[in-house]
């Protein structure tokens, strides 16, 4: 199907006075439509890698190509559009806007590009809320929801614009095993139905093993790259 995400010799060094290298010469390719997991110890550089892939962070050296286009050659507005249309994020710390209700948060990526929320989009948002098990609390202020509920809201939000690529940083970190199982099924379902590419950081061995491919990061290097 072709490559959706390509990293070429990516290095990341934090700090200017005291320099800490977090990523060492990472080169990776992700196929469009694939379902990938990234594992590794805490502090190994997983989030850093994901943020670089999501254009939020820039590599110190090396290139990131999204659908073959080098991120370095994009303007701020082009990057914003890529983040909005092409990529769906689920952050490690589930960031919602506390001033808005759960469903308003889900609709936010759509509203960033569109003037009006159509009926279809609204019912799609409601459908996703249903799928992540939140239809009861969809009109609650997002700040009044539990950690797990917020995390599930963030997942529904990542899906709303039908992105080609979903980058998720421990999306089930706060969930019990049943919920984790459900979310995983949901993501797998979307992957199969819509051909959405998933790159998921996880501590959860069971989820990692169900992915098509497992990439393990150790101290900023690729320790293992296993495709089923």
């Amino acid at each position, binding site marked *: 199907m072709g490559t959706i995400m390509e990293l070429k010799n990516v290095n990341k060094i934090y700090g200017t006075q005291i320099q800490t290298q977090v990523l060492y010469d990472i080169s990776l390719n992700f196929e469009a439509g694939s379902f990938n997991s990234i594992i590794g110890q805490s502090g190994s550089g997983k*989030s850093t890698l994901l*943020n670089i892939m*999501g254009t*939020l*962070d820039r590599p110190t050296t090396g290139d990131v190509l999204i659908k073959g286009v080098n991120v370095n050659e994009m303007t*701020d*507005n082009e990057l*914003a*559009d*890529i*983040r*909005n*249309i092409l990529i769906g*994020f689920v*952050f490690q*710390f589930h*960031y*919602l*806007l*506390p*001033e*808005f209700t759960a469903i308003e948060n889900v609709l*936010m*990526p759509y*509203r*960033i*590009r569109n*003037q009006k929320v159509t009926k279809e989009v609204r019912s799609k948002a409601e459908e996703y809320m249903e799928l992540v098990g939140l239809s009861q609390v969809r009109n609650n202020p997002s700040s009044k929801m539990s950690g797990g509920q917020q995390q599930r809201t963030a997942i529904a*939000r990542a899906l709303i614009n039908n992105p080609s690529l979903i980058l998720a940083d421990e999306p089930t970190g706060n969930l019990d095993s049943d919920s984790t199982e459900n979310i995983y099924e949901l993501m797998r379902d979307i992957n199969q139905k819509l051909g959405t590419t998933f790159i998921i950081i996880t501590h959860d061995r069971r989820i990692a093993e169900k992915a098509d491919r497992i990439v393990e990061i150790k101290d900023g290097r690729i320790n293992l790259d296993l495709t089923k």
Partner: protein
Amino acid sequence: MRLGFHIAVRFLKSNVGQTILIIMGIAIGVSVQIFIGSLIQGLQKSLIEKTIGDSAHITILPGEDEEEIEDYDVLYKKILGADERIESISFAADYPAFFELDDESKSVLVRGFDLKKADKIYDFSQRMVEGEFPDDPDEVMVGVGLRDEFHLKKGDMITLLTNSGNVDEFMITGFFDLKVASVNKTWVITTLKVSENLFGLDRTLTSIEIQLQEDHVFEADEVSKKLAGIIGRKFKTEDWKGQNEQLLSGLQGQSISSIMIQVFVLISVVLGIASVLAITVIQKSRQIGILKAMGIRNKSASFIFISEGLLLGIFGAIMGIALGLGLAYSFTKFAVNADGTPVVALYISNEFILLSGLIAVASSVAAALIPAVRSSRLNPIDIIRNN
């Protein structure tokens, strides 16, 4: 745009206390501006009204080597077509005389007017306290000052004695009050004909008085110059501005200090809004970071804060206008003279109020530019990484 506005509304609602505080700040600024502005404008208007409200704006007098204005029909036609800003023209034949009653006498100024025309300048019909205009050849009217001094009544007969020795008897038809003590005491007003007869003249004037249209009162010097050019050197012109230079420079000083006050109020309001909005960017940096990670463009992110400035400005201006008008109203109700009239009649001008409101809105938006620029510089990774 729409989203930015919507987010701005939510941000403002999420911090109601802070929002009310800024709106109050703007409102107080606007109300002070409106109150001071109306007060100063009212003060100036009443001062000017007192000065020129019922006297000529431009006076045409005989030139250096002339005694009187003769053949005024030609002159009248010239003046009539000279400038569109001229509202009315009045003839005057003024001569000093002695006013005598019983054994007492007093020097007065006999002013012969075409009363219909003079009324447009002096507003006699409104200023009559008793009686009516003189009409017959042996009638005059006098001011309330003279009435009180000689205990005059309507219908009394008095004698006028001219410098050249002419003596004549006149009946008093009424009393006027022009609100200026010296005028009320010394003017004896009659018709042009009577004045001419009394002083043995034939169709000569001592002055022609000109009133300008209300909106052009302050162009009196300009019109006066233009007139002088048209009517030639046999006459000279005087205007109220030239004769009231001190008053005018006083008023100008007052205007400048009023504008200064208003500018400083404005600056403090702008600084207040700018600093509070700068804090909101920090308060909301997390949200801005999230929105940027979700792909909001820098411009749209900035627009959130511009909208906040706009909303705060609009609400602040509306409240400020209400507050300012309330303040002005209570001032005219509580700061009153013994007879119940306000100490200073405020001049409430719709344009001025609208302008103050618009300036408040514009400066609120301007104050929001700093936080708007800041928000567009905010990098989402700093938020995402640091939780």
